[in-house]
């Protein structure tokens, strides 16, 4: 049992995966000598060599395309894109190549690659270094999308993503990198597509993922003081997502609020709500509400950014509203 930070859990998962499987390689800008812009691959080049921990030029499209080609040719590449905002440059490799190769070639071969990238605001990094774009990838058949909320799940999900035969977009939250948590020495792989109930409650279900899980937990704490018991579901995987767990929770609480940091309109929450408005309709005793970012770019100024990000207060208010 070791306490470690989220960033270190990522690093440990990369190291353990590389030690276990020689076909795992890392590639990305500054992942090698510098150990990653945020430090996720620190020490790995020294340990596994420059042939397996590859510094690329500033050529996102080619490095992502190369990951696809390498995955089709026997490797398990883990590519890093420094900020999720820069995934705008790798959409073709992910969407038209990685996601479709298995299907469009008739199931001949899998594409076992992972694309790691951090999303999210809170650092005053401004409109082009803070976006949460996971809804794009969740909409693409053939991709899997994962977003852990703490060190334990970061470790377990990253190991599972690397072991997975299909392309996985693995999303980290920059503001969680410093968060501490327990990661046992032989921590298990966590199955993709499986949610976790982090707090039980009978009055309402709050579904969240990534950093927003902590916003949801804080809201649940506030609500408990008023006697409202909210259940908090950490989705962990966004595609596939665990609709059974969400439905089961909704069937107990009959109220649903979905929380994320991405823009609300056409975001991940929309799918969760839409699905529950179909298969969970008869369980609903109140409107399904979303708490997410407003329809604007992520602003630079601290004050604006704070107002932009979902807060425990807004989540608690939404729970109260659906209970009203």
């Amino acid at each position: 049992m070791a306490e470690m930070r989220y960033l270190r859990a990522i690093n440990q998962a990369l190291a353990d995966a590389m030690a276990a499987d020689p076909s795992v390689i890392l590639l990305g800008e500054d992942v090698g000598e510098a150990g990653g812009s945020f430090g996720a691959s620190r020490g790995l080049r020294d340990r596994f060599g420059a042939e397996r921990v590859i510094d690329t030029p500033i050529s996102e499209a080619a490095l992502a395309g190369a990951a696809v080609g390498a995955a089709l040719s026997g490797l398990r590449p883990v590519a890093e894109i420094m900020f999720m905002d820069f995934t705008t440059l790798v959409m073709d490799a992910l969407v038209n190549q990685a996601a479709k190769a298995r299907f469009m070639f008739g199931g001949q071969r899998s594409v076992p690659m992972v694309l790691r990238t951090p999303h999210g605001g809170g650092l005053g990094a401004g409109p082009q270094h803070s976006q949460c774009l996971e809804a794009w990838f969740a909409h693409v058949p053939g991709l899997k999308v994962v977003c852990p909320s703490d060190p334990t799940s970061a470790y377990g999900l990253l190991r599972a993503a690397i072991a997975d035969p299909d392309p996985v977009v693995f999303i980290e939250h920059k503001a969680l990198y410093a968060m501490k948590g327990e990661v046992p020495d032989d921590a298990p792989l966590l199955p993709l597509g499986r949610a976790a109930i982090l707090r039980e409650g009978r009055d309402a279900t709050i579904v969240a993922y990534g950093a927003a899980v902590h916003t949801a937990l804080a809201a649940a704490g506030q609500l408990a003081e008023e006697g409202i018991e909210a259940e908090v579901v950490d989705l962990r995987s966004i595609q596939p997502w665990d609709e059974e767990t969400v439905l089961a929770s909704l069937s107990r609480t009959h109220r649903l609020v979905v929380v994320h940091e991405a823009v609300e309109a056409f975001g991940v929450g929309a799918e969760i709500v839409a699905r529950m408005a179909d298969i969970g309709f008869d369980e609903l005793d109140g409107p399904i509400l979303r708490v997410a970012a407003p329809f604007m770019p992520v602003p630079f100024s601290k004050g604006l950014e704070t107002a932009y990000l979902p807060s425990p207060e807004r989540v608690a208010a939404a729970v109260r509203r659906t209970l009203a």
Partner: protein
Amino acid sequence: MSQPGAMRSEAGAGHNAAAELLALYRSLVLIRRSEERLSRMFADGEVPGFIHLSIGQEAVSAGVMSALTPQDTIASTHRGHGHAIAKGISLDGFFAELLARDTGLCRGRGGSMHVADMSVGMLGANGIVGAGVSIALGSALAHKTQKNGAIAVAFFGDGALAEGLMHECLNMAALWKLPLLFVCENNGWGEFLPTSKQLAFTLKDLAAAYRIPHVVIDGNDVAVVAEHAASLVAEVRRDGPRVLECMTTRVRGHFEGDAQKYRDPDELAGLSARDPLDVTAGQLKALGIGESALADIADEIAARIEAAVEAARAAPMPSFEAAQADVYTVSNAARENA
């Protein structure tokens, strides 16, 4: 299909050269007749979607592939039939795919623009101009990492030279000395516009900037292509990337159904003088190969093609449920088992 000991023109005439040239000719004919057959079936409405034929460009496919081993990988383009056939994919699987059958190489899910056969190192045609180059780059990286002695080949058209991805790949291949052969099929066109109106540079100058050795050759003479491919492939295996630029001719328009009204009729008419099959047939005659040997090849290939077409026609259509289950390797198993 591959020809490990490839053609050298200086190797002298005699039995060996003739046999090698005949094998190359067979590859040319197989591609040509297959595409002509497709062209007719397309006109009849039997082949759905869009198809881009490589008629007039077959010598590039046949020549380059003659220098590769089955372990070598290739990534192709929208105009990929020739590459696929020359790399040795199953002809039955090819026709079945073009006819969208369940027995197709891609089980009817991909079609002309996505023909692939991983078992022979054909990593796929590609509907996205330039994308195949990055896939070949990654494949070359995998070969190098795995130290398996194989190389990758990236095929692309002259129009693709304008894509930024192309340049990123040239740089990375040069930087990392990857075992990657860049093969440009320069047919002078990108869709309906001459590439002279699309490019302010030549591939020769570009390759020089990246310090990747570059050779430009007559891409319609399969003996020439095979000879240069053989020596470049050896260099790539040993030293890193090379560029082979093949000057060639797009005969049938951008896609089937393109009447090419935008092209000078004289230019179009002149293309037949450079027909790769005619060029090679002439050389074979000069080497003493008689009409009857060529006729035998023609007959044999016609029969293979008819057999493939008939098998495809008789084959079942793909099932929707099976297709849907093949999006992921283990469809939703993690979810259900966990």
